[in-house]
């Protein structure tokens, strides 16, 4: 940078007026029951919990809390549907049901997006342009596999596993439901699915769609509740398969609970992805990729590029560009179509993030947060950059699951590969360079299940996703996403 040059100014005279999406296009009931055996059933205990909008802390609805008996009802219903209906149905017919669900999701896309944003806190732009369409794509993709499984594994016979218990997180509620349900159904399994307790609504809306699609009762059961409900699902003897997306900590508990049983499992857990930028990269596109890598969905992304490794020769310039870009991010009302960073999903998650920001400061790192006015109510965290960071710092080692980026530098390829792999996790990684041969070296040597080269945070129903090491096992998406739901004989 030339010495006298003033930094660019993004506090422009021209501002964007609020452009809120209308909440009235979505219908949210005052209370939701459990979706078991194709019907809405009251929880055995009669207990309900409240779900709130994290952007204003207002109550959105009351959600049924399932206990062990409810779980048992749901699993029995899934078993019955498996044995009596779903297993016997021709694969082509199964596929048509799944296609039907995909189409109905597309029809209700706007309503689903609004509810996803109201309850989850994510920007409406992301719900509308990413979560909902990608969820529908998953159903559409796997629908087509239902009658083609014999071609997927040449010389092998395949059989469904039975009842799949699926537990999903709060960061992509509808999309994760789709990732779980679509392949399970296509492979002939039946499902008991539990959304996270802070984000039940779109899964329940999906239950409405499933009911409307006339899926045979019990093929998909959606029950709500917190960790205890999940534990009851994992421990239920009638379950053949556990599919879990969430923290590594809980993943380990699940693996321990099913040790020695015949239950199969797929675990999609935490991450601490390295995003590596070489000096020859397309710098401005790399800046954009880094921003999307860490600030997409408020950083509530297991594959978020939370460790940025910059080649020393471009570090200063890159950080300046990153700050310029971050200055244009709009933090605020998730329902505003212009919002880039919405609300943190819950109070407890906000506390975790703020704790790590404190840790980062105490560890001696320099912090940068752009000036932004945050709403008074609700849970908010501005985009945060940490520089002067060391590999041994906790903000480099531990998953924060928020909009916090740790920036480190490197000099040689070897050094950065070693640092990037220096983590218990192995979910994803990013590399930015214009040199083809280096891309192939890096993508091969990075120990991670998904490697984005000159891009980041891309997802597709046809693309397998899942981790190495403590990021879990099994793949979701693509041909490889069929395997975890099949006995391959």
């Amino acid at each position, binding site marked *: *940078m030339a010495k006298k*040059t003033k930094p660019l100014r993004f506090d422009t*005279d021209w501002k964007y007026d609020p*452009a809120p999406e209308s909440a009235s296009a979505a219908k949210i009931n005052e209370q939701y029951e459990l979706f078991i055996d194709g019907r809405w059933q009251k929880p055995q205990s009669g207990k309900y919990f409240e779900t709130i909008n994290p952007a204003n802390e207002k109550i959105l609805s009351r959600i049924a809390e399932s206990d062990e008996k409810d779980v048992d009802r749901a699993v029995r219903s899934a078993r019955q549907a498996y044995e009596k209906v779903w297993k016997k149905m021709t694969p082509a017919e199964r596929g048509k049901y799944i296609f039907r669900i995909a189409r109905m999701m597309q029809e209700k896309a706007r309503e689903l997006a609004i509810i996803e944003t109201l309850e989850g806190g994510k920007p409406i732009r992301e719900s509308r342009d990413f979560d909902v369409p990608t969820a529908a794509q998953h159903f559409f993709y796997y629908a087509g596999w239902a009658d083609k499984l014999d071609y997927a594994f040449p010389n092998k016979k395949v059989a469904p596993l039975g009842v799949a218990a699926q537990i999903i997180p709060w960061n992509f509620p509808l999309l994760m439901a789709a990732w779980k349900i679509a392949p399970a159904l296509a492979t002939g399994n039946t499902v008991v699915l539990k959304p996270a307790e802070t984000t039940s609504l779109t899964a329940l809306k999906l239950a409405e769609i499933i009911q409307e699609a006339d899926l045979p009762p019990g093929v998909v059961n959606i029950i709500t509740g917190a960790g205890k409900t999940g534990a009851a699902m994992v421990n239920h003897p009638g379950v053949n398969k556990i599919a879990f997306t969430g923290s590594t900590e809980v993943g380990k508990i699940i693996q321990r609970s099913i040790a020695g049983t015949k239950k199969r499992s797929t675990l999609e857990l935490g991450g601490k992805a390295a995003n590596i930028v070489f000096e020859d990269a397309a*710098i*401005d*596109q790399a800046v954009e990729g880094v921003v999307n890598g860490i600030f997409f969905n408020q950083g509530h992304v297991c594959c978020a590029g939370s460790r940025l490794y910059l080649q020393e020769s471009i570090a200063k310039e890159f950080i*300046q560009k990153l700050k310029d870009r971050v200055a244009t991010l709009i933090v605020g009302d998730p329902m505003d179509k212009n919002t880039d960073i919405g609300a943190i999903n819950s109070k407890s998650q906000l506390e975790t993030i703020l704790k790590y920001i404190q840790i980062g400061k105490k560890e001696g790192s320099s912090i940068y947060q752009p000036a932004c006015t945050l709403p008074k109510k609700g849970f908010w965290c501005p985009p945060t950059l940490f520089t002067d960071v060391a590999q041994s710092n906790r903000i480099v080692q531990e998953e924060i699951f928020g909009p916090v980026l740790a920036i480190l530098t490197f000099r040689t390829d070897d050094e950065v590969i070693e640092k990037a792999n220096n983590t218990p996790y192995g979910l994803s990684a990013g590399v930015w360079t*214009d040199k083809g041969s280096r891309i192939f070296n890096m993508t091969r040597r990075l120990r991670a299940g998904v490697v984005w080269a000159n891009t980041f945070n891309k997802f597709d129903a046809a693309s397998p996703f899942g981790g190495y090491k403590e990021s879990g096992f099994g793949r979701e998406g693509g041909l490889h996403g069929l395997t975890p739901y099949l006995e391959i004989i």
Partner: protein
Amino acid sequence: MKRSSPAQILPDFRRTRVVDQTGIEERAARFTKRSIKQSSKQQALNQVLNMIDLTTLEGKDTDQKVRQLCYKARHLHDELADIPTVAAVCVYPNFVRVAKKALEGSSVKVASVATAFPSGQSTRAIKLADTRFAVSEGVDEVDMVISRGKFHAGEYGFVFDEIAAIKEACGKARLKVILETGELGSFDKVRRASDIAMYAGADFIKTSTGKIQPAATMPVTLVMLEAIRDFYYQTGRQVGMKPAGGISKSKLALHYLVMLRETLGQDWMSNEWFRFGASSLANDVLMQIRKERTGQYQSAAYFSVD
């Protein structure tokens, strides 16, 4: 060329920064997701009007046609109060005098294409003469074209020197350098041509002549805005941007304005540093302004077509 300091070293234009097409297109698409409403929209529409270079560059142009265009430039739509004028009128060199006279007393600038526009296929002497003629006729801004053939042949020094020579011939007139991006073939080459033009002394870089398709697109404009940003951080010198051709709807113009705001920020948000090279855009913006003010959807029949 003028150098900001003697120590400044020219970059090696064979090694200009690379651009990733998919990444540029994704970023450009992201700007179009901004929803511009209410007073923000009214403010932006006025801003767009004020950034337009009304253009007529046709073989059939006459003095009368140019006068009509200049009248339009000063009186965009008299029925609407409090609307700005356009930034400039852009004509061939032989109409500069007519345009200057027609715009006397207004803030509207006169720009002229020069340098064997639009192909640029002529000798250096003729291009310089073309430029000097326009300048002698009192032009405020010169829009030159680069020698794309030489550029593709890798003769970057030739292209650089030509721009530097024209810049010198411009005197006080500001120089806009047209890259003709539709003939360059890749974003990497657009980036390289942008760098050459800026280091050679361009006051503005401009996408297109309007005679070649594709003309301005958001991604290509973004590549050039990013080049301007890097040049600014390298040298401290501000360079303006002019997308030209293909921007005829106000909605698209607002997307460009968002792109400008979020790429270069406040210091570029005026017609001193950003222009739209367009002729039919103005009427669409006027229709939008009237719609915003009256709440009614508009008909083109009510807006003059000069």
